[in-house]
């Protein structure tokens, strides 16, 4: 990874500090560029005031059981506590799981298939009734099982639990009848039975689907109108999509039972359907506090602020968890030959890809598959001398000779043509390859169908000789399995919607994936993920591009601000405002 990138970031921080000192009068808190990526900015325990969120679309859903967007997973914790959640801490500490509704961390049986979770006693909903284990079981049922299961969220429980014939709670009669894979021996205990051991199960328990929903309160997708609160805030009025959301304090919530929420503001408001440029402008003007989507500034304001030395003090520049890379297909000629794939690795200068994302502020040059926040990542591992950003044309030529194409070869690159940054990246790759004598032709496809029917279809890839395909990947949770299994396990290759686009089917790698799910020691797991990463790079099946970074505006009045790598955005549960009146 880029020591160059780090050096530059450090230098920028110094200049930003210097520039800020004169200016930080009123709201200024003396924070520096990118400080919120690694530490808590503006720590405070001043309660009160209104925290103002806005989002450019409508919220995906307010229902914690019906969502796949990280910002809802983060935000819904205001009113929906989950069994486990991520520690409220910056940096690597933020990826640690802690009990939320749970009384302590779950226990697993010796064979790895039975997980027991105790929940805290005396927890209450906003109406004062008690939160019981069966409500959590019901919440998991409604979001995972049956034809009418809520559509938006992932279906991990359905894939993992040892349950064959349960067809969901909406069939009429007793909603949980026949759902035996989760037992509730008493009101405060849940026992999960899995098909087979799954080491990452704790991450699944941190998903918002484990927020309790009493069966008699459920209204299917309409439940989002008023989610019964288990957290420090509740809906003020019924929610109508598009009209925004207002949260007020829930007096039944007990701070003593909660490890992560500071609950400082009195009110929390969400405006929906505000245009991105307006959101950014109002953030800068102090009329808004947080862009709910958490993806950072739009291009307009970003372009203005990153070139302004003083404004930089209000910017954070964390990694988004997304890795943009090039799949190097192992079946399409001549890339079925390892040396030809390696030639591509040496021939592509990563600097061109980095430029497409906005230079060092837009992304770190990647030299391996796993993003740096995930255990097992070894940023110093750089088998193809990619960190410098420059191509190694000599080495590429050697490899081309080795694979029987000393004068170059033809290859196609697939790309989503309606994504300018990706097109820019691919155009740079094309020029880089041309210098080594590799003639690349770009094939553009609409992003709507790209992941499913073009890049995601091995038949299409073979028919159209898509040797190279540009792609981006983000994990549902910060572990090597969560990140790599879909894109690198040979058993994950599918006919449509395929994510293992390089069609890497290496027995050694497949075996490691099979083994790692029953390994419990995190250290040992991390070693296996590092080993998989190394094997993939030796196979040259993925050409790492950049680990993307976002530029987030941090208003001066926002307190306890820090970037949590688990959510890839600020941790919303600790935020407060200095304007407490």
């Amino acid at each position: 990874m880029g020591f160059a990138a780090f050096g530059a970031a450090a230098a920028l921080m110094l200049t930003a500090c210097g520039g800020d000192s004169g200016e930080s009068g009123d709201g200024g808190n003396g924070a520096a560029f990118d400080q919120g990526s690694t530490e808590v900015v503006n720590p405070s325990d001043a309660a009160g005031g209104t925290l103002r969120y806005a989002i450019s679309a409508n919220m995906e859903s307010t229902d914690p059981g019906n969502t796949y967007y990280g910002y809802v997973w983060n935000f819904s914790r205001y009113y929906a506590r989950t069994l486990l959640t991520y520690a409220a801490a910056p940096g690597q500490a933020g990826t640690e799981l802690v009990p939320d509704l749970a009384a302590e961390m779950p226990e697993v049986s010796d064979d790895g298939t039975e997980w027991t979770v105790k929940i805290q006693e005396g927890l209450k909903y906003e109406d004062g009734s008690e939160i019981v284990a069966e409500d959590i079981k019901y919440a998991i049922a409604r979001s995972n099982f049956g034809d009418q299961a809520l559509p938006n969220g992932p279906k991990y429980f359905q894939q993992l639990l040892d349950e064959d014939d349960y067809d969901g709670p909406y069939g009429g009669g007793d909603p949980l009848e026949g759902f035996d894979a989760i037992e509730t021996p008493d009101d405060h205990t849940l026992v999960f039975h899995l098909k087979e051991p799954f080491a990452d199960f704790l991450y699944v328990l941190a998903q918002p689907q484990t927020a309790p929903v009493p069966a008699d309160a459920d209204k299917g997708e309409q439940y989002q109108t008023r989610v019964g609160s288990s957290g420090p805030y509740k809906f003020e009025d019924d929610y109508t999509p598009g009209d925004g959301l207002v949260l007020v304090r829930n007096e039944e919530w007990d701070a003593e039972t909660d490890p992560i929420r500071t609950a400082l503001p009195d009110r929390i408001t969400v405006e929906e359907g505000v245009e991105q440029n307006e959101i950014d402008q109002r953030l800068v003007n102090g009329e808004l506090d947080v862009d709910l989507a958490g993806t950072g500034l739009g291009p307009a304001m970003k372009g203005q602020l990153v070139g302004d030395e003083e404004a930089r003090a209000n910017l954070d520049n964390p990694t988004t968890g997304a890795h943009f890379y090039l799949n190097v297909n192992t079946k399409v000629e001549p890339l079925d030959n390892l040396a030809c794939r390696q030639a591509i690795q040496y021939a592509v200068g990563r600097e061109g890809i980095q430029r497409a994302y906005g230079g060092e502020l837009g992304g770190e040059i990647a030299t391996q598959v796993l993003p740096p926040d995930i255990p097992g990542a070894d940023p110093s591992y750089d088998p193809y001398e990619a960190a410098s950003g420059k191509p190694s044309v000599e080495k590429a030529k050697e490899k081309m000779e080795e694979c029987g194409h000393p004068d170059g070869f033809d290859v196609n690159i697939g790309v989503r043509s309606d994504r300018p940054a990706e097109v820019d990246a691919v155009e740079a790759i094309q020029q880089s390859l041309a210098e080594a004598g590799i003639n690349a032709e770009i094939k553009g496809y609409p992003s709507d169908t790209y992941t499913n029917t073009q890049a995601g279809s091995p038949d299409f890839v073979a028919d159209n000789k898509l040797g190279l395909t540009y792609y981006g990947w983000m994990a549902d949770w910060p572990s090597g399995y969560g990140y790599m299994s879909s894109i690198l396990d040979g058993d994950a290759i599918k006919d449509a919607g395929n994510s293992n686009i390089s069609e890497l089917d290496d027995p050694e790698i497949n075996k490691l994936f099979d083994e790692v799910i029953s390994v419990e020691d995190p250290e040992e797991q991390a070693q296996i993920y590092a080993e998989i990463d190394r094997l993939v790079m030796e196979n040259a099946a993925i050409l790492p591009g950049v680990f993307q970074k976002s530029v987030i505006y941090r208003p001066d009045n926002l307190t306890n601000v820090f970037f949590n790598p688990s959510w890839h955005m600020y941790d919303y549960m600790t935020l407060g405002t200095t304007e407490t009146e």
Partner: protein
Amino acid sequence: MTAPLDAPESAQHAEPEAIARGRRDAASRSLTQIAWRRLRRDPVALGGGVFVALLILVAVFAPLLTHWFGHPPNQFHQDLIDPATQGVLKDPDDPWSGIDPTGGMSAEHLLGLEPVNGRDLFSRIVYGARISLLVAFLSTLLCVVIGTLLGVLAGYLGGWVDTVISRTMDIFLAFPLLLFAIALAGVIPDDAFGLSSNALRIAVLVFIIGFFSWPYIGRIVRGQTLTLREREFVEAARSMGAGTGHILFREILPNLVAPILVYATLLIPTNILFEAALSFLGVGVNPPTPTWGGMLSESLDYYPVAPHFVIIPGLAIFVTVLAFNLFGDGLRDAFDPRSSD
């Protein structure tokens, strides 16, 4: 007043039609002349026409123009770009010098540079004209051919043929074309019908635009044919024993040339916009081949740092469409028998 431009031999021997024919022939020969005379006196239409002619020359001689005044359209000039803001620097040697609001316009780069990779915008606009015009002309040709053929048949034959063709036109006009285009672009592989890559993409664009726009021409041609088929010269030909083919192509079609020409000229700008829209949506030709619509689409992500990148391709589309429309309007007025001389 419309009349055949090319009177059939057989009609000239008949009395008293022969006399009438002869007079009309005299009038019709001068109609084109009248039209041309009117057009020449219309400076707006003429301006549009001259611009269109120039644009065609620009497209044809794009390699020469970029050789003299620009750079290869795909050549990067990254040394002039600030990697962080992705815009063109005022001073390439000073990363804090700020963004050049003109986007780097200079004698070296007449219309400035694209953001990110710094390609020469002048060259890309000039090359972009090729795709825009090629697709617009070919697709217009396609819909004129289909529209005229089916329109004449529907209008002349009437009956169930007319019903079938007219309903087909209704269906085509109601078709959600943009959605269909996106879906089709997703299904069509990169090698088909003996074409590959950009040639195939262009063929697909031409097909989609042309094949679904023909009813616009078709309706007009059908309407004109309905009136023409009742006219004396058609009946005369029919009474002389002329076959359907002869009447359609020798009697009626020549009278349709003027309206077809006018509407084709007015369809071209629509099709230019359509091509731009499809490129905008990512179903156009492949990068890095420049197209105006594609450039406009990409530019929206960078407008704060490179406003010229939005304005220039937008202006190119706007001026071209305007020129075609002005020319087409002038042409219509010139051919309109009701307009005064």
